[in-house]
């Protein structure tokens, strides 16, 4: 029989992470959280989560970094803002979830070939290169890098969309594409300069 401690000790905390959480965009008011649970109750996906939004709020403000960044919740969040508009303390729960997702991507804490970060990457590459998204090519690029079999499984839907004229293959592009590169490079430079 393998015995495991089920209660967290204060020593398991990462105070730096707790500090980061309360200073990041969205996390400013996290100390006001009452743990009322409205966020979890309103969340359409909390029933699939290992840590519901309420628990995630508590774990992150106390600095339980491993639990938070390893949680399925940050990937399940669809950003529907139900938690945020219902929070009695006006905590930006959704924005904080975004911040946690970004941090998890930065620290590469996700399974191999996991679709969400791949999608994010392909999306931003396409914006840089064309200025607009062509949905058909985005989907193909994501599935090629995650699950080729699912791409085949999706081919019937793809064909139906194509035949109904809803999946044009022509790539959408803006005329002044160099402006995209300038814009994105400038953001990167300012971010570095101001250490944002």
């Amino acid at each position: 029989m393998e015995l495991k401690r089920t209660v967290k000790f204060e020593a398991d905390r990462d105070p730096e992470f707790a500090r980061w959480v309360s200073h990041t965009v969205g996390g400013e008011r996290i100390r006001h959280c009452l743990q009322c649970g409205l966020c979890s109750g309103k969340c359409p996906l909390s029933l699939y989560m290992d840590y519901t939004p309420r628990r995630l709020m508590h774990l992150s403000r106390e600095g339980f970094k491993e639990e938070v960044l390893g949680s399925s919740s940050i990937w399940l969040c669809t950003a529907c803002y139900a938690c945020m508009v219902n929070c009695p303390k006006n905590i930006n729960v959704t924005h904080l979830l975004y911040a946690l997702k970004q941090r998890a991507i930065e620290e590469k804490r996700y399974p191999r070939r996991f679709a969400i970060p791949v999608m994010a990457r392909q999306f931003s590459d396409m914006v840089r290169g064309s200025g607009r998204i062509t949905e058909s090519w985005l989907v193909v690029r994501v599935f090629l890098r995650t699950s080729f079999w699912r791409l085949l499984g999706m081919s019937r839907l793809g064909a139906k969309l194509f035949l109904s004229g809803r999946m044009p293959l022509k790539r959408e592009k803006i005329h002044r594409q160099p402006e995209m590169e300038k814009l994105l490079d400038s953001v990167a430079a300012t971010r570095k300069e101001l250490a944002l």
Partner: protein
Amino acid sequence: MRYAYYPGCSLRGTGRSYEESLLAVFRALDVEIDEIDDWNCCGATTYMSVDELTSYALASRNMALAERGHSEIIAPCAACYLVLNKTQHYIREYPSIKIVVTRALETIGLEYHDRIRVRHPLDVLLNDVKPENIAAKVKVPLNGLKFAPYYGCQIVRPYSTFDDQRDPTSMERLLEACGAKAVHYPLKTLCCGGSQKGTLPEVGLDLVHYLLKEAQKNGAEVVATVCPLCQFNLESFQKEAGERHDETSLPVLYFTQLMALALGAPAHTIGLQRGFVPIEPLLTTKEIAYA
């Protein structure tokens, strides 16, 4: 007044019938628009989650372009509408974000003055055009066609000011002016799962099923949507969700398709033929003599 129009990427792809029908509605009601010159992707939910700072810069390029000559911008796509609004709020609230955006726009010779108001077609049709004027122009009344008003998440939350965040009613008021009848639909602002169907399929299918099942249970003959992703999910995965749970068969249309129909636009010009669950038999049963 002429509005700046920001279609967004989806309306040129899977959401094509949204744009076709929206433009038909605007034409019928004399809403004058100018498409923003050389608009770019707003960054959507996907970009927001990897690199928020960049997404503010992307969104503000569109607003800066629209500000040249317009004071209001119409964004029909839910994600675009949210991102533009969020960008405005964050530029006001966080000085660091304002610096990033201002510098980025400078490099491409643009300036953002925070003088543009972001509006949704629901808002414009309800508050500028007004339901009574729409009712006066209806050519093909919708004969009590029962619809489930499905708003999804990002139109009414978190920034919209034109409707209630928990129980919005603007779509009901617009479509009832066209002769349709709303059914009770308490799930109207529940999330459809967004892009989860692509990334975590099982979860997406469950949500699609709850939404359709509830609409059917409450007597809806059609689901009316306002978001390209909601419409896509509910329609394209209806069969798959039915195989996993139990079957539903509901046409899923954009609210603008129903409005355009009532205002006399020919069916093939507003993308009715693009639907996967055909609507024509229903229109015949309801004796709606569409063009």
